């Protein structure tokens, strides 16, 4: 080593990535040949790497006073915690007092590694690909985004989803759907929902939380432990198993505020299902929980799996047109607001799902009752699907995996024509999904109904 000051400077520059590629190559060649430089480099790089590897404990440095007196024993680094519970409790944003001033520090715990066709809203974290993410909230409106946590866990968000990142081992699903892949070293990775806590035990799993208080877990591989259940017990779920929890904090059956037709720009009149004799609801094969006419969501699902599967769901919406002169309608649109259903995973349905809207031609059935409708009494349907003698197919629409990114508008001449033929002041439409699923835990699509606390209820726009 010719000049130790110069060598040290090269080492420090190499550690900070400040050498040009040529200088760095020359440095490497010298380290290989020069034993003294190599020894000095290893001393420095080990120190540098020790600080990086122990970065989590460094925050404690700002809370301590300078060490004025010698301490005789060398202290070990705090023993790394390996229990899930302990790992989940590490707080990564700390506020500390330095010389009377407050310094807030936040360190990255995850990276946004992939974002397909994403649109974000109200996020307090950066949302460009390769962004380093600290503690904070991500709200995905449209698309599919993948986060890689420093613990090694990979979490994929499917829009619409809001996720709060807490630590490299812990996040909170406010609403929506995520799937997580957790390698053994990240054992203990935890996802909270408003209803439950899911602790990974080495696995691949999905969690979904509905906007109206229900959560579902599905284990694709391995095992998870569920906490936070009403009975206070922990429950283990193994591969292929699922669990659905309703927290009861839904506003089921609440009487919604009645809406009024709204005159909009461009000559449009918007009529919500909450107006007059309007109504909306859905039915599920098997009638579990029926009648579902006053649920905050209208949910649709279709399965090609076992015939008679109980998770088939169809919706119906009825608008009150008593104040509208229907024969003079030129254009018509149906607006639906997608909401997370809390049921199923879009990873288990094809890339895009097709839906159909049918008009109820048999007007005697327009008087269906939200509080009485069951699967067998759903207007215009038999067990297999819409009954061709009583309904007319008016339109199809598609929702890509990762969501539509906001309200959907369905339009077409067939829709306007159907409304012009109305004779009783009520028009009803069936909404069905035509795309099946590849697994019984496939996603159920949902839209806000007039009972939904925040979403926009189904609306018919006419002009």
């Amino acid at each position: 080593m010719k000049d130790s000051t110069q060598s040290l400077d090269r080492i420090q520059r190499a550690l900070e990535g400040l050498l040009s590629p040529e200088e760095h190559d020359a440095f490497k060649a010298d380290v290989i040949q020069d034993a003294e430089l190599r020894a000095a480099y290893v001393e420095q790089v080990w120190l540098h790497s020790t600080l990086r590897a122990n970065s989590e404990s460094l925050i404690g440095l700002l809370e301590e006073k300078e060490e004025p007196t010698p301490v005789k024993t060398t202290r070990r680094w705090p023993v790394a915690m390996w229990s899930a519970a302990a790992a989940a409790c590490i707080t990564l944003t700390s506020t500390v007092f330095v010389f009377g001033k407050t310094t807030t520090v936040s360190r990255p715990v995850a990276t946004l590694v992939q974002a397909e066709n994403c649109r974000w809203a109200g996020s307090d974290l950066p949302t460009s690909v390769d962004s380093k993410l600290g503690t904070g909230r991500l709200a995905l409106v449209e698309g599919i985004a993948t986060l890689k946590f420093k613990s090694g866990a990979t979490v994929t968000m499917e829009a619409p989803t809001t996720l709060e990142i807490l630590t490299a081992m812990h996040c909170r699903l406010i609403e929506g759907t995520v799937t997580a892949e957790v390698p053994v070293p990240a054992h203990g990775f935890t996802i909270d929902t408003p209803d439950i806590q899911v602790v990974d035990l080495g696995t691949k799993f999905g969690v979904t939380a509905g906007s109206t208080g229900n959560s579902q877990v599905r284990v694709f591989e391995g095992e998870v432990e569920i906490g936070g259940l009403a009975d206070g017990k922990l429950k283990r779920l193994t591969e292929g198993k699922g669990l659905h929890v309703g927290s009861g904090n839904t506003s089921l059956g609440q009487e919604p505020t009645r809406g009024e037709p709204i005159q909009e720009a461009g000559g449009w009149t918007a009529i919500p299902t909450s107006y007059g004799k309007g109504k909306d609801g859905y039915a599920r094969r098997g009638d579990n929980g029926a009648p579902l006419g006053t649920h905050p969501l209208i949910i649709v699902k279709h399965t090609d799996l076992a015939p008679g599967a109980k998770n088939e769901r169809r919706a119906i919406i009825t608008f009150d047109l008593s104040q509208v002169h229907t024969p003079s309608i030129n254009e018509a649109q149906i607006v639906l607001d997608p909401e997370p259903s809390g049921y199923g995973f879009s990873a288990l349905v094809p890339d895009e799902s097709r839906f159909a809207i049918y008009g109820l031609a048999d007007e005697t059935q327009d008087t269906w009752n939200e509080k009485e409708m069951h699967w067998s009494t759903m207007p215009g349907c038999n067990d297999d699907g819409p009954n061709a003698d009583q309904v007319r197919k008016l339109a199809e629409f598609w929702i890509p995996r990762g969501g539509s990114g906001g309200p959907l508008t369905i339009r077409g001449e067939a829709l306007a024509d159907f409304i012009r033929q109305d004779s009783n002041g009520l028009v009803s439409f069936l909404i069905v999904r035509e795309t099946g699923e590849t697994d019984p835990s496939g996603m159920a699509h949902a839209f806000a109904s007039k009972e939904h606390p925040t979403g926009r209820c189904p609306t018919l726009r006419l002009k």
Partner: protein
Amino acid sequence: MASNQPDSTDQTEAYLRLLTQHDRWLATYVYSLVSSAADADDILQEVKVTLWKQFPKFEPGTNFRAWARTIATNQILNYRRSEKKRSTSSSLDEAFIEAVAAEIDHRAESLDHKAEALQLCLRKLPEAHRKIIVWRYYEDCGVEEIATKSERTVDAVYRLLSRIRQVLSDCVTRQIAHPSTP
């Protein structure tokens, strides 16, 4: 989980115990051989998965660090080889990694002691210097970010960081030589 992985609960527990005990050391080792922070974290994850897969071959009671060191070094070399764009300098990179790995191997015991002494030496730093260390290593800030935060020039921050690391290095060396002196 893939079928070639150990599946008994005892094995998993034994592995997690050892990994926990040597977790920070393993990270230090990988960081020392991989300069890119992003690559290093990915490789570290892969190393842990490989250690887990190979764990049935580990003989309980033998030196876990020596065993893990060999696996980690191979994994780092494989990672380098898989990066095609680096083909021009890959032989230099490999020779560099092997040379540094051998040097760490050779000095393993003293480096471990120094890592332990570092905690004490950090506490002796003046408050302002601890703050730089927290920015650099806890918040993962680069020299330029620290320059902005501390209203210094980039060059001044670089020189300050170098000096702090040198002070720490001298301190740990003294601690090892004379553990009882301040």
